[in-house]
């Protein structure tokens, strides 16, 4: 059987799974909506992958990233758990080792990663506001009754993008409504939204960063051609979108799992058929002191695998 390396990226909006061959070539990818159920989504995704390639590929290493990375690492038996910033940087430089700027926009976060000579030298990630993210576009798309997939092609047809305030997603919406009521056409408004998002991104996470080409644009939002175009215009430099832009985090952590499992000599991967295992979490409030920590207990079938949430560490398994 051929060897494969699994990467799982569980974010707030989507759950991405990839399997790479030992040379880093993508064998299969799955892009699923998380819908607030990370455990079931991963079980489902793994099952699908197992059905499709489980016969000819043996998983030799597995890694997790994204906001649910620790939880999911317990479920699949990951060899490495890594934050999504590092994972994205590794994936981008595996495609172009000269890359110096990475723009990554996901469902609820946006980040910029500055690299020099293949090393991350600076990064920023939005903290208290989601204005420059995919959710912003999602909101406006549903407001305009346009499927988000078609957003980009509309924007490309625009002749005179309308200026829309992008500081705050809520006020952008009222600004957009006013422009609609003044009779601007939809294409120009959509292009204006793309420009607003780019402005917001540059003012928010891009502020004070030294942006040099090559620039790579990844994350689910890179599907939007209008936005890619808006970035090109704003930065006045070429912006590259990698082939598998939507699953770059998963690719990055799959690449890292290759080294991690080689170092360990074996993989902890539990197999594709974890659907039959029941994973369960329960929680209780610790009465040990005034902190009243909410302790979460994680069970695989009836076996207690881990506890977390306690500040003092007394509940650790």
């Amino acid at each position, binding site marked *: 059987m051929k060897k494969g390396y699994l990467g799982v990226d569980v974010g707030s909006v989507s759950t991405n799974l990839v399997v790479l061959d030992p040379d880093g070539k993508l064998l299969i990818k799955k892009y699923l909506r998380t819908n607030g159920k990370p455990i079931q989504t991963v079980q489902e995704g793994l099952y699908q992958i197992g059905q499709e390639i489980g016969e000819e590929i043996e998983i030799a290493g597995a890694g997790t990233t994204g*906001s649910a990375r620790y939880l999911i690492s317990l479920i699949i038996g990951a060899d490495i758990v*890594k*934050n*999504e*910033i*590092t994972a994205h940087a590794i994936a981008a430089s595996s495609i172009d080792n000269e890359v110096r700027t990475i723009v990554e926009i996901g469902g609820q976060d946006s980040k910029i990663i500055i690299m020099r*000579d293949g*090393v*991350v*030298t*600076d*990064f*920023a*990630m939005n*903290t*208290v506001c989601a204005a420059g993210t995919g959710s912003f576009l999602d909101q406006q798309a549903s407001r305009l009754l346009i499927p988000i997939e078609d957003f980009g092609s509309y924007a490309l047809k625009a002749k005179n993008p309308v200026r829309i305030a992008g500081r705050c997603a809520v006020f952008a919406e009222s600004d957009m409504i006013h422009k609609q009521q003044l009779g601007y056409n939809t294409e120009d408004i959509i292009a204006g939204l793309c420009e607003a998002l780019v402005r917001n991104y540059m003012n928010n996470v891009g*502020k*004070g*960063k030294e942006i040099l080409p090559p620039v790579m644009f990844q994350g689910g939002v890179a599907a939007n051609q209008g936005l890619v175009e808006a970035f090109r215009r704003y930065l006045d430099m070429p912006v590259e979108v990698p082939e598998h832009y939507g699953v770059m985090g998963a690719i990055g952590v799959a690449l890292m799992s290759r080294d991690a499992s080689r170092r360990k000599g074996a993989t902890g991967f539990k197999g594709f058929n974890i659907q039959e295992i029941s994973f369960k979490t329960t929680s209780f409030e610790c009465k040990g002191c*005034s*902190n*009243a920590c909410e302790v979460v207990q994680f069970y695989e079938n009836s076996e207690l695998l881990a506890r977390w949430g306690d*500040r*003092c*560490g*007394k509940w*650790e398994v």
Partner: protein
Amino acid sequence: MKVSFPHMGYSYLAFKWMVEHTGHECIVPPEPSKRTLDLGVRHSPEFACIPFKMLMGTYLEVAEMGAEMIITSGSNGPCRAGLYWVMHQYLLEELGQPVKIVALEPPLCDMRDFIGKLRLIRKTGGISTKQLIWVLQVTWEKVKAIDEIERHSHEIRPYEIGKGDTTRAFWQALEMIDAANSINEVRLAYREALKVLDAVPQDNSRNPLKVGIIGEIYVVLEPSANHYMQIMLGEMGVQTDRSIYLSGYTKKTTIYDLEGDLYTVAQPYLNEAPIGGHGANSIAETVLYSRHGYDGVVQLAPFSCIPEIVAKSILPTVSRDHDIPVLTLFIDEQTGKAGVQTRLEAFVDLMERRREVKQKQSTIARRLVI
């Protein structure tokens, strides 16, 4: 009277002792929790910063517990926080809470006000001036001891073998300071407390990264406001130092005026206009941490804090000039720890890779010399 005060890190142990020994009953402020935040957010102006909201919440909680007087600090406006107590007093009155806020201004700024307020605390407690001076001396000794053992705990945590051992030893050490009742007892307890910390099993072969924590005083000092960042980093194997300690801060703004030094350091970047709050400090401290060989700096800023926003926009230049990476984290109502953890982990990766590259470069340079 039933007296309380703001919760800032572990200093509450010293202030509890102070209140109890000035003839008052102490209402110990609870550690800021989700409920504190809920209360604070509900009764504060929307655009106020998180320190304002957290303090508002704390004051309402202690009022509920029966506090009649809250002792806090004023200060001649490092930023608008110096005037927060006035707003808090208005809001408490509006909410029908019969609590009086007594804000001690720095003595150098208004000596008469300072003495008058101390007299009020003394008279209502029924103690003599001599007793008060003694109480203040012991309290000061406690503040220093608490700061010092906390500082030491952040030094040894990255070496701990069992996760959480340092934190447990630290609490034990705090209890020892808490039990002391005179200057000598505090000093003795302090020496014993250090032994308890040093007894934590450590792996000295590690070479932890060193990170300086800078920013606005409240979010830097109150662990529950910054997701217990120093403990989090320590358990990730990073040694942390922070720019502000209460004993250092109080000393600098009251009796010794040492801040002049910091302004000289910050001056190349602030020639045009000085900035308030801890903004100038943040710039100077980044320079100083770089000079002292730190691997990076984390800036903590309350969302909408103008001094820190100004500092943030200057820090990229400082970071380039002094070759030290800076991570800025804005702090607001969010209580989810995952986001902060992600950024810190990525920052640690960044610093580790930098260290590797630097070491490689220096070995190459050494070979070339030979």
